[in-house]
């Protein structure tokens, strides 16, 4: 299934876009998505670590993605 991924901060610089369409298998978990992202975008190895948000909340690695979920890659935050 197709999902849309939002990018911010260092990750939008590394991937040179603020959003991308990505194909994942049905019943993929957040952990599966992270592995698939690393294969397609090895540049992601250049950052410390990152979290995944699903529908504007931090997602556990076991969460199963649904079609039309809003996914965001959250690199280490530095507000304040």
């Amino acid at each position, binding site marked *: 299934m197709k999902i849309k991924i*939002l990018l*911010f*901060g*260092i990750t939008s*610089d590394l991937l040179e876009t603020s959003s991308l369409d990505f194909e994942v298998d049905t019943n993929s978990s957040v952990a599966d998505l992270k592995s698939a992202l690393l294969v397609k975008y090895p540049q992601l190895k*250049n*950052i*410390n670590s990152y979290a995944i*948000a699903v529908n*504007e*909340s*931090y997602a556990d690695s076991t969460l199963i993605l649904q079609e039309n979920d809003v996914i*965001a890659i*959250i*690199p*280490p*935050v*530095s*507000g*304040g």
Partner: protein
Amino acid sequence: MEKTSIKVTSKKLDLQECYNFVTDDSCGGIAAFVGTVRNDTQGKEVIQLDFSTYKPMAIKEMQKIADLALDKFKIEKIAIHHAEGMLQIGEIPVIITASAKHRKAAFDACQFAIDTLKETVPIWKKEHFSDGEVWVNAHP
């Protein structure tokens, strides 16, 4: 009556607004934390900071912090406002105010809110130097 005020804005933050929001006749004190843009990082001169945000999620996470602070500490009201966009040295990226019957809860709530904000709220700052720029915390 609203007990929390949450804002992410490209306008200049207003300490008076945050102060006014938390004032309450039942309170004996108001604590405020004001973050300001510092002119150096690890000995290197910073020219300006650019804050980008995942705004809808940032607002949700800031609301969670405010609600948790109301639960954890004996405060009456709390305001958490954060700026986005380019800020110059001395300008204000974040203001937190909290009011309480007694001062300790107000201090504790401010400390908790800024510490948690720096860990969980999806906001990123890019430091601009005279010879380049770097996303803070991004690299190993």
